[in-house]
């Protein structure tokens, strides 16, 4: 899980160690055991409301637009951790705009 955590560490550092949003984000993973097939959803709704669910267990929503942006920056930013996902995403959005 260190691999996963390392993705988010950059974000979290930007947000600040004592950020309530950061603490709430970390709390959402506490006590969870992730096995093959476990699903983590990080859902950002309008207004910057982040909902974290681990295997369907939803944590209390976190209102933090910077955290939402930072999370997506990990995957869609200049140094994406899953490059093929970013490439597919960009192509799909271009298709949305009819390109």
């Amino acid at each position, binding site marked *: 899980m260190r691999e996963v*955590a390392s993705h988010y*560490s950059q974000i979290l550092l930007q947000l600040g*160690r004592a950020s309530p949003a950061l603490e709430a984000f*970390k709390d959402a*993973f506490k006590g969870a055991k992730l*096995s093959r097939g476990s699903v983590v959803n990080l859902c950002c709704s309008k207004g910057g409301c982040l909902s974290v669910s681990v295997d369907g267990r939803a944590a209390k929503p976190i209102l933090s*637009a910077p955290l939402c942006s930072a999370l997506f920056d990990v995957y869609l930013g200049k140094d994406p951790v899953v490059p093929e996902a*970013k*490439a597919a995403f960009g192509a799909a959005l271009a298709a*949305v705009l009819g390109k």
Partner: protein
Amino acid sequence: MAAIQRCTGPYVCFWPYEGTRQAKSDPRKSVASRPIGYFLSLMQQIAAVLPLQRRRGVRSPFAALSWSPSVAPPSPKVVTEPKTGLPLQTEHCSSRGACAQLAGQGVRVKRIAGLAQVQVYSLGILIDGQAVRKALAAKYQTRSAASLASALCAEAISLDVEKTLQLVFARTVGGDAVSGALAERLEPQARACCA
């Protein structure tokens, strides 16, 4: 009488019947009191209407988009990520009712000791395509597709629309390890800034 109404979004709203107000005032006409034949006829009406919509070409606004062109979905709501064999949802809806659709997928691979590669999780990136179109269509009207993809990714980071990161794990991991690893990465930085 059952009625099927189209919402403004890509959903079909189903109303059990139109006499809701009347049923409240007259308990004898409540849904619970309806005979089972009523519900059977209701299901038949639904089955009759839905294929008709398909024949008439009524499609989801995103049906034309090839969100995952390399993957054949085993069911309408799930695709299998080919490298891990793990399922990814094609749509995720929030409690507010807004939905995001799968637009990109891949596998997070970690190299261990510089040698072996380990699959950590399958990733799905979902976003409300309709909202994206509404927000960005005018802005990127004249851009070519080649230059557009990168710009759209940058836009999507801060775009205030429904969007979801879906991680489906390919190996067993403890949740406490997540918190521990986070703290481990945070503490050196905290020491550096606050010493």
